[in-house]
């Protein structure tokens, strides 16, 4: 199965007054048709910028470079502005985090939905309207036809996010990038939206790049996971592998922070990772996680750490051996 999206060696640099911020460093991943890849990490780890870099929607002061950046075989690095615009919303759709502000308040829902299709297909307006109604119903919005005439401010956050999803689907994209699609929503709505995304993905066999900080979401929806820290991928693998046998100390720490029903005993302290994420400005050598790692050694600050491939699709970025990591994990559980 050839990958829909192939990314290798992606860098995003932002020019700041204090220096060059290396927000995304040497990130590689691929998204396959019909499968979900999750990019997980805390705020500021560069996951959103990675997605924006793929779509060429980076803020003006950010620069991207990559060894490989291919979508359906097309080299995106060389794609001109018009070509990229033809792809966006058409072959690749992106859904953002803030449904409350992601729709233009001056135009109706219908107008904005139809526009998404009419931009890329030369079809009569009626056909666009019918497709909009069809998709609104697909995402679970009742009375779809009358909704078309409503304005965004007349809809709740959950409804607006559904509209965003419908809008992303208007042209039948091959891939969806969802950047924290449920973070701004109530917990109950979150579950609904996630189920919706998962079922739509299966039905239309789309690739899904899911960006989130919530490991719970990852467990529910993703097939593969890339854990990001301070702009780098520190661990990657299938969901089951990551959850059952996390290797990188950061991943272990993350998983230790979540209560697991059945495993976590009442009254037990949840784990936390001491320290703060460093700012990736200036000369960066060694492991980015070392000032928060319980298993620090002198070797950690000297070398430029590369991803260590254990098996196909399973890698992590740490000097410790897999056996040591497993040992550490057992030590934590005590």
């Amino acid at each position, binding site marked *: 199965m050839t990958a829909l999206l192939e990314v290798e060696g992606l860098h995003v640099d932002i020019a700041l007054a204090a220096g060059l911020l290396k927000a995304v460093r040497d990130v590689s991943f691929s998204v396959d048709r019909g499968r979900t890849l999750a990019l997980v990490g805390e705020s500021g780890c560069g996951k959103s910028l990675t997605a924006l870099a793929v779509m060429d*929607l980076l803020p003006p002061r950010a620069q991207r470079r990559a060894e490989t950046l291919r979508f359906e075989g097309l080299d995106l690095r060389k794609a001109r502005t018009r070509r990229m*615009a033809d792809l966006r*919303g058409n072959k690749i759709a992106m859904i*953002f985090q803030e449904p409350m502000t*992601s729709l*233009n308040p*001056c135009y109706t829902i219908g107008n904005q939905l139809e526009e998404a299709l009419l931009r*890329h297909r030369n079809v009569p307006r009626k056909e666009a309207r019918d497709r909009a109604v069809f998709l609104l119903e697909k995402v679970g919005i009742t009375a779809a036809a009358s909704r078309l005439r409503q*304005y965004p401010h007349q809809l709740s956050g959950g409804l607006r996010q559904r509209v965003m999803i419908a809008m992303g689907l208007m042209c039948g994209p091959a891939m969806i990038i969802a950047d924290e699609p449920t973070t701004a929503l109530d917990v109950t709505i979150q579950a609904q939206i996630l189920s919706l995304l998962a079922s739509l993905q299966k039905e239309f066999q789309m690739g899904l790049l899911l960006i989130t900080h919530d490991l719970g979401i990852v467990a529910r929806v993703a097939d593969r996971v890339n854990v990001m820290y301070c702009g780098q991928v520190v661990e990657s693998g299938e969901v089951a592998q990551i959850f059952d046998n996390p290797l990188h100390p950061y991943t272990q720490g993350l998983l230790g922070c979540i209560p697991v029903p059945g495993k976590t005993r009442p009254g037990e302290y949840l784990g936390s990772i001491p320290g703060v994420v460093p700012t990736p400005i200036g000369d960066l050598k060694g492991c980015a996680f070392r000032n928060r790692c319980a298993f620090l050694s002198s070797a950690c600050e000297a070398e430029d750490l590369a991803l260590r491939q254990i098996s196909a699709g399973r890698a992590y970025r740490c000097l410790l051996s897999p056996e040591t990591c497993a040992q550490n994990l057992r030590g934590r559980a005590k």
Partner: protein
Amino acid sequence: MLTYTLKRFSLAVLVALTVSFVTFMLLRFSGDPAAALAGVNATPREIEFVRVKYGLDRPVVIQYAAWAKRALQGDFGESNYFNQPVESIIGGRLGVTMTLGGCALGFAVLLAVPMGVLAAVRPNTWIDRVALTVSVIGQAMPSFFFGLILIIVFGVMLRWLPVSGSSSWRHFVLPSIALGYYATPAIMRLTRSGMLEVLASDYIRTAKAKGLRSGSVLFKHALRNAIIPVVSLLAVQFGFMLGGSLVIETIFAINGVGFLGYESIARADLPMVQAIVLLVSMFYVVLTFLADLFNAFLDPRIRVG
């Protein structure tokens, strides 16, 4: 909606009354209107005669009440100079001033809005700097100076346009530019800052993510939102132009209400001055009211739900 309109209307009336009252007091207390009317060479007896004849010996408040009562019925008194009802004379000149104001505003918009959009799309580049520089210089030049320069360059040296009178459309070109350019900086800056803010908003990011072409993003989505506060500004500016057209009309000998006001002051034709001040202030209030209505029309969040 109805209560809103009624509230605004009563506000307008109240403002008009206050303005007319303040102006009335100012004019009465600024000097002796009877002496002004009677002329420079009048004897004290003649001044006294004028005073009694025009009821200027009554308490000031009574005088105002009498004026206001007549004004509410549409009678603004007789001009001391023309010996005709004030309204008829003003009415004849009003169209000219409105035309001048409209053209000036049109000029300002045609110049300022594209500049503002351009500056916002390319912030901190030379385009942005040029726009800001032009706007800063525009605000610094006194309007009469600019008017005179226009006359010298376009009227006399190049002989492209007439510089005096208001008989043809050509006569309105230079005065409109002179009057309108002063509003240009404010409009440009508001358009620019509004566009900058809107272009950074999430729905513009959505529009780009949908693959919309940049023209569509810029005009259909961004400008549509950014222009809303500009409309209110335009209404206010138009109101200022109606009141501030005096200098320009005087320089270009445009036969409008502003010029009439200037002449009336020189002639101590107080009823006329009083009426003109009232007229301009009423216009301003009505314009801001219309601007609010238009705002509601443009922004669905205000009008629906």
